[in-house]
């Protein structure tokens, strides 16, 4: 029988109670579905003394259409609920497709929107058992001094692997965050650092409570990912695209990636794609400088670069033709 490290579980009923409970306990972590955190606790990667279980916080479990046409999605909404929601499936296919492609149905039953956005970064030197990691002298992200992915460098290259972030980012998502200093909101794309060891810009004690997306009106969107096991895996590369077509041109396009860098990347310099007839090669030509996978998975970076470009090409073509 394998025991977990000793910890205490606190079960608040409101966001306010959750934030207060975090402040009242040393070395606390928030936990919702637990499909990411519990694995890391079991592997001895993290050993919090207190878990603040926010599964019972009812106020963060709703999906509400906004007056201005957008949608407010509670951070506690499960991925199965999100994928099955009528308005999301109809107006925001990229989000429903991304939610449906996270792990397996048993995970999605409990895994939440907030958990997927705050997913820990992943690396083949990090997501391993204690004996595996100790025999490798640990790594920069966890108890060690060297990033085995790039030993001569000074940063961690673990990859952000949440599927929802790019799909929400192409709809200009904002996140609402509660913490010891009150409530604040910021664009989702600004919640992340380009650092695998500290990829979230959340202050101590802060928790995500909601994501607000703009109206999906007029946008055609989708999500595509490549993974080792088609039924369950994290992305080797994932891409979300939202575009608007006008004749043979694009009138707007937004493209975001996951699984390739230490943060979800919103593709820059897409303005040029709006000049002249839509040219998918001009789109994929933007990738090499911005989409930069490192050897953090069993599949080599070259494969992930190619697969990111091919997914982008196929998805952009499909969305353009369907428009």
């Amino acid at each position, binding site marked *: 029988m394998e025991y977990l490290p*000793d910890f205490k579980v606190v079960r608040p009923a409101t966001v306010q109670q959750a934030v207060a409970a975090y402040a009242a306990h040393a070395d606390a972590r928030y936990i919702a579905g637990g499909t990411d955190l519990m694995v890391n606790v079991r592997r001895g990667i993290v050993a919090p003394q207190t*878990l603040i279980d926010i599964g019972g916080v009812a106020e963060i479990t709703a999906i509400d259409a906004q007056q201005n046409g957008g949608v407010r999605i509670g951070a506690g909404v499960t991925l199965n609920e999100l994928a099955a929601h009528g308005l999301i499936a109809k107006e925001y296919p990229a989000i429903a497709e991304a939610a449906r492609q996270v792990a397996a149905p048993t*995970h999605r*039953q409990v895994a939440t929107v907030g958990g997927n956005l705050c997913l820990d970064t992943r690396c083949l030197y990090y997501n391993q058992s204690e004996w595996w990691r100790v025999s490798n002298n640990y790594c920069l992200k966890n108890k060690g001094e060297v990033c085995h992915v790039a030993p001569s460098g000074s940063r961690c290259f673990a990859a952000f692997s949440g599927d929802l972030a790019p799909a929400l980012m192409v709809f200009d998502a904002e996140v609402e965050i509660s913490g010891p200093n009150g409530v604040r909101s910021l664009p989702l794309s600004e919640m992340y650092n380009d650092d695998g060891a500290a990829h979230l810009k959340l202050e101590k004690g802060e928790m995500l409570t909601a994501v607000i997306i703009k109206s999906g009106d007029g946008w055609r969107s989708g999500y595509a990912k490549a993974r080792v096991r088609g*039924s369950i895996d994290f992305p080797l590369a994932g891409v979300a695209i939202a575009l608007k077509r006008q004749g043979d041109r694009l009138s707007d396009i937004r493209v975001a990636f996951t699984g390739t860098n230490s943060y979800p990347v919103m593709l820059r310099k897409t303005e040029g794609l709006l000049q002249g007839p839509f040219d998918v090669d001009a789109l994929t030509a933007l990738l090499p400088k911005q989409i930069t996978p490192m050897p953090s998975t069993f599949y080599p970076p070259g494969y992930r670069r190619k697969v990111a470009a091919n997914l982008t090409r196929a998805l952009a073509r499909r969305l353009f033709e369907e428009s």
Partner: protein
Amino acid sequence: MSKSMLRLNLNGQNGEYAVADNMLLIDFLREVAHLTGTKMGCDGGECGACTVLIDGRPQLSCLTLAASCAGRHVETVEGCAQGGRLSRLQRAFNEKLGSQCGYCTPGMIMAAEGLLRTNPHPTDSETQEALGGNICRCTGYVKIIESVRAAASGEPL
């Protein structure tokens, strides 16, 4: 170690147990309730061998804390047979050779049971989707899908 009283309904029986905060549902089922049908496979939510039903929905008992099941209905493979007679789904796995070494079978059966309750006549692709988180290391997937198809059909087994 922080402990609390856990009240839950386990395979149709209400029970009350003193459970540590850090006890996983799978450890509770196997070590406290002595229901060893539920198997630990991969250690990290990747294989589905530990799948049980919580309020009728398939979930992974290796990632679920026992204490979070307070007030809920938990069902394991031991709860399928009634009065010593295997359920139709279990008999289908037996008749259609859906079980080889048998280690993944309890998880497969519970994932399939969860599917058939909400969707009594699934297509093969719906079955594949529902069992997508369950690995059969003998790779007997064809027979597993056939077993679920047989259970869902009205035909005599």
